[in-house]
């Protein structure tokens, strides 16, 4: 069931985008989501789509992954678009009017724009997660949070928690699978019956999982302490992030994109 999940998956590759600095990728993805809202006419949306598709082509990841990324959210998107189309204030030519429902030219155009925004945001964030290993993302987050140290935010500790959490995701998934199978062998039906029966069936999965997580945490803490872990301060770092010329170029291309968008904006 977990294999279908596209979100947060990483596809190993050897492209320009794969080799970019994760900080650059993370910040630029957020920046991209910001500048999507500059776009307000069809020229600007075409530029944004062209830019996104170019980035996807550069990554060398198959198209189907991006389509699959949109699929689980398609109903949410259509619902939002529908609300926008049916209930937005009238403007331009009115095609249909009944009670509070108005389908107008402006409403339709806004609906299309919202659809485009959703798709662009999903494409870009999927591109980020597909081309960046979770580990690099957590490094990037640590780096970006660094200024918060000034307000006594425990950056090292949060980064360590994040990387341990990421490292244990597959281990816990395996364990979940194992416990589920063990409980099935003893006659527990998962996903059967009404909502209450289903919830009750989860208990023999959840409690062993919790207990074993506690045991794991204790073992891990002991092992960490035995290996001299005394907290974030005074540690050296094995992995370091390197800003390269390609990251500068990527940033410049986003600047250029912003200029073009502002210029084309109606």
């Amino acid at each position: 069931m977990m294999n279908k999940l596209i979100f947060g998956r990483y596809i190993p590759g050897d492209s320009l985008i794969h080799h970019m600095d994760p900080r650059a990728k993370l910040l630029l993805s957020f920046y991209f989501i910001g500048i999507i809202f500059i776009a307000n006419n069809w020229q600007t949306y075409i530029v944004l789509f062209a830019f996104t598709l170019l980035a996807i082509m550069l990554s060398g990841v198959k198209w189907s992954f991006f389509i699959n990324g949109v699929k689980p959210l398609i109903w949410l998107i259509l619902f939002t678009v529908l609300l926008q189309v049916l209930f937005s204030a009238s403007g331009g030519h009115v095609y249909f009017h009944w009670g509070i429902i108005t389908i107008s030219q402006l409403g339709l155009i806004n609906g299309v724009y919202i659809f485009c925004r959703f798709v662009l945001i999903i494409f870009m964030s999927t591109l980020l997660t597909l081309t960046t290993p979770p580990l690099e993302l957590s490094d990037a987050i640590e780096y970006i949070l660094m200024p918060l140290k000034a307000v006594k935010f425990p950056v090292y500790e949060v980064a360590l928690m994040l990387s341990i959490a990421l490292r244990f995701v597959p281990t816990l998934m395996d364990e979940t699978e194992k416990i589920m199978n063990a409980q099935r062998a003893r006659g527990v039906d998962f996903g059967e019956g009404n909502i209450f029966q289903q919830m009750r069936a989860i208990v023999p999965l959840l409690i062993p999982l919790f207990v074993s997580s506690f045991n794991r945490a204790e073992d891990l803490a002991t092992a960490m302490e035995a290996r001299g872990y005394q907290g974030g301060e005074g540690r050296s770092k094995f992995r370091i992030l390197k800003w390269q010329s390609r990251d500068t170029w990527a940033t410049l291309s986003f600047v250029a994109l912003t200029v073009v968008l502002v210029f084309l904006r109606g």
Partner: protein
Amino acid sequence: MSQIIDVAHLNYRYPQQSADDLTLKDISFSVAAGEWVAIVGHNGSGKSTLAKNLNGLLAPASGTITVDGEVLSEDTVWNIRKKIGMVFQNPDNQFVGATVADDVAFGLENQGVPRDEMLARVAAALKQVNMSDFATREPARLSGGQKQRVALAGMIAAQPQILILDEATSMLDPRGRAEVLQTIQAMKVAGNLTVLSITHDIDEAASANRVLVVNDGELKEEGTPAEIFRHGPELIKMGLDMPYAERLKAALKRQGVQVPADYLTEKGMADWLWQLSSNK
């Protein structure tokens, strides 16, 4: 030979225990530098508690522990932990890093080793345990034996003087176990390493210089593997298996064959059998 570990009248009890119910009772022993000592005993005899006392993971109720000339106390504990490397039982639960190389580097990061030196030491340690090709792998994609070898590589990189194996091979298959033991032997040959292994594994105990038998929190016996293995069937009660040669001897004895009382290695047993049959 200088004593690297000196334990004197060590008592320990867990917080939930009453004053007279001790997990460790008046334990005293010392280990010479470069020695391989096996600690054996049945489940719940206090072996692991003893190991955790040695590097200050647990604080003793009374008694002193001296490691390499330093008495264990709150001030010296981090310095002593630098000298002691510990490998635990469950390979999954002690894997801190997100990848193999990260895990090996974890101990070095804690010591604040500069990055250039860290890279060299991590690469060398991975090579020594034959895991260089796996440096960027995630733990979820490794077998138990491989994870345990990564844990060892972490120890090699940190260069401790003492290595404590807390049932480090108990969750491995015979092949993984043999690999880990070979790696430790190689580490021992390479440097003046002292090894304390807590084990139920007879091969691991047999490769030790000395065996300590712990029973119900007390140090019952100590001697060379040959002296301990002479106990024959009693070994099972100590939480150890019988060595193959001992089992063969017991089986021969049941058949009415006169067998020597002394412990024989497999080779010694083979020699003795040859002699026996050639005398007829």
